[in-house]
């Protein structure tokens, strides 16, 4: 089985280069000049800054991802997603981007289709066309958090969704995806998995709701990776899965997520079949807890709800 790679996007020479840690070289932007195409790989981008509270959630989830994920996954540890990161992928490669986000309750996990996000940005060419896109689309790694429009506005000013406003300072995720799409000539396929954060202060700890939701975050990332590997690759229309047993309230948080075994049989036309590695952990109730709508957005495993809104 092909080994995945780890791309640590850090300053030069700050990266060691053992066999599974590869320093990215150059900035190829077209499919023609990209090095070593690996069409069977899925790229996982874990974004954020571990020194900024909940912004480090995606980095923290790394230890919770099962070992089997790395067999066919290239890992990228980045502060924020860059169009060039996506341009380095082959046209038929899929990716999962995970980051802490604002605009949804802390600890809530939401997933979006990258194609949908890119489409939302394309309609932002003129401010008159800004659609009512939900605020969580802006990753917290953006240097300028959306301004809170509490100042008295001119009479004719119509407040717009600040999270989708085009900024000179950084490209929001939808714009990044749209730009990469234009440069690659093809839509970036895959999913964005966001975990709602509450504290982005200068500290290395995660807030309690985010720490409690890490396992759920990890499972959703794994599911998204599984969806990306589905042959033929289609946005998941139906999601049959079994979740590992949730820890009881007050129990120690689980340290690892059992890796689901998934079938990639060419005879199997349903998008994804995930079988629990531990049958005794599976229950109908838990299976039905995971919801995925017919497009590509889903909200999984709301820790807050599960724990009675703690």
């Amino acid at each position: 089985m092909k080994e995945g790679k780890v791309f640590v996007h850090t300053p030069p020479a700050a990266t060691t280069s053992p066999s599974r840690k590869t320093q990215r070289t150059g900035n190829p932007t077209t499919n023609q000049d990209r090095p070593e195409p690996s069409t069977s790989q899925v790229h996982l981008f874990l974004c954020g800054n571990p020194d900024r509270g909940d912004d480090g959630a995606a980095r923290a989830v790394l230890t919770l991802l099962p070992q089997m994920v790395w067999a066919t996954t290239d890992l990228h540890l980045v502060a924020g997603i860059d169009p060039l990161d996506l341009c380095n992928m082959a046209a038929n490669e899929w990716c999962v981007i995970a980051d802490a986000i604002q605009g949804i309750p802390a600890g809530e996990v939401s997933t979006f289709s990258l194609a949908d996000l890119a489409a939302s940005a394309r309609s932002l060419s003129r401010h008159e066309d800004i659609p009512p896109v939900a605020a969580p689309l802006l990753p917290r790694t953006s240097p300028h958090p959306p301004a809170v429009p509490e100042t008295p506005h001119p009479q004719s000013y119509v407040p717009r969704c600040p999270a989708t406003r085009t900024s000179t300072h950084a490209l929001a995720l939808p714009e990044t995806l749209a730009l990469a799409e234009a440069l690659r000539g093809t839509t970036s396929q895959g999913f964005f998995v966001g975990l709602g954060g509450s504290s982005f202060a200068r500290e290395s700890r995660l807030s309690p709701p985010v720490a409690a939701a890490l396992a759920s975050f990890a499972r959703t990332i794994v599911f998204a990776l599984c969806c990306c590997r589905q042959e033929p690759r289609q946005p998941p229309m139906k999601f049959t899965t079994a979740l590992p047993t949730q820890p009881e309230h007050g129990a120690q948080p689980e340290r690892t997520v059992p890796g689901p075994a998934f079938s990639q049989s060419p005879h199997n036309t349903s998008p994804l079949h995930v079988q629990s590695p531990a049958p005794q952990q599976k229950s109908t109730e838990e299976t039905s807890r995971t919801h995925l709508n017919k497009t590509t957005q889903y909200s999984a495993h709301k820790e807050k709800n599960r724990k009675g809104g703690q």
Partner: protein
Amino acid sequence: MHKTNGAERSLDVNLITRVEGEGSLHLLVQEGKVTEARLSIFEAPRYFEKLVEGRTPQEVIDIVARICGICPVAYQMTAVQAFEDCFGIEVAPETRALRRLMYCGEWIESHALHLYMLQTPDFLGYPSAVAMAQDHRDLVANGLRVKKMGNTIIECIGGRAIHPVSLCVGGFTHLPSRKELDTLRRELDVVIPLATDTLRWTGNLTAPPFTRETLFVSLFHPHEYPMNEGRIVSSGSGSHTIDLAPGAWADAFHEIQLEGTNALHARTMRGETYAVGPPARIALCGDQLHPEAHAGLSETGLREEIARNPHWGIAARAAEILHALCEARDIAESYRPPAEKAVPWTPRAGIAAWTTEAPRGTLYHRYLLDEEGKPRHATIIPPTSQNQGAIEHDLVESASGLLHLSDEKLTAELERLVRSYDPCISCATHFLAVTVEDTPSAKNTAPAQEQ
């Protein structure tokens, strides 16, 4: 936009696009003449000057970086040099070079973002960089590479690209290794040809035919292109020419509060508006450009045009990108780590004031320090608040020749003019002293900021 009585025409752009922050533009035309152009900033005041009061110098350096996500180095560098000047600290030449390298990184990433993503779509007729990228893939891809080079430099020196953490009073908390800068140097060799091509390409563009006279202000250093040292100088000649120490900005300039905006406007003591930024630096210090950038700019034949037409700021930024890349390469090549990360220092009471050249222009900090080196009062004058008057002046001048256009086209042209200054509205909304009069017709008044 609406017209009244056939004699008055007003145009409102309620949210200027592709600029940072939330600002609007109001234009009033009476009897065929543009009588008023107002760039209003309604983004909330951010109170940074109040936030730094009572903080240690290192806390101040960390706090002021948050004023801007794209030019945090400028805010940090200005603050750190103000403190060092007040405390009588002299850093090693190697530290000075490293700081200059860091500043180069910021210029590169800031200018690249504006040039390739914001201003070029105006020149090529696209509504956005995303739309432009579909037809000009190589141009946008090269722009992203250049921008990333700037981020990489800042990350290498400062620990991370946004809000770096290594700068401190007396030097750095962390120094890069020789090996890191060797890697940087190799990457710069790849990117410099892209910037050279971009500068050459700007010479083939066509800008709107608008010219005006304006007063330029920037730092000037006799031996190098100005970044973090030099004297504050102005264009023009005669007794009104400005020539000040970098901490003496307030001797020649002041800020005023205008109705309808949350940003203070800067003026000279004679009440003149003035422009800062890349065109000002090219106009006043163009001979100090790195030889490769100087030659590239000469090849475009735009050096004089940059001073006359604000739209040619695109060429000024292209020249400064190439300058910063070449200088970064030279510094990386000759780098030797300083003997110590930071020289020891002792705080003392006094006035800490300094000016540096942020990507968008002259940035001034002034702190009244107590005996522990903690600010009791702070004043921060960002470039955009200094450019606002010049922008409004140019809007009046430019709009007068565009009144025959439809509302939509006139709006687009005026927005383009504002964008050519690369304004950062978020930076400009700094401290305001607001007094609310408790009267039936309550209205906000803002006395001039205490200096």
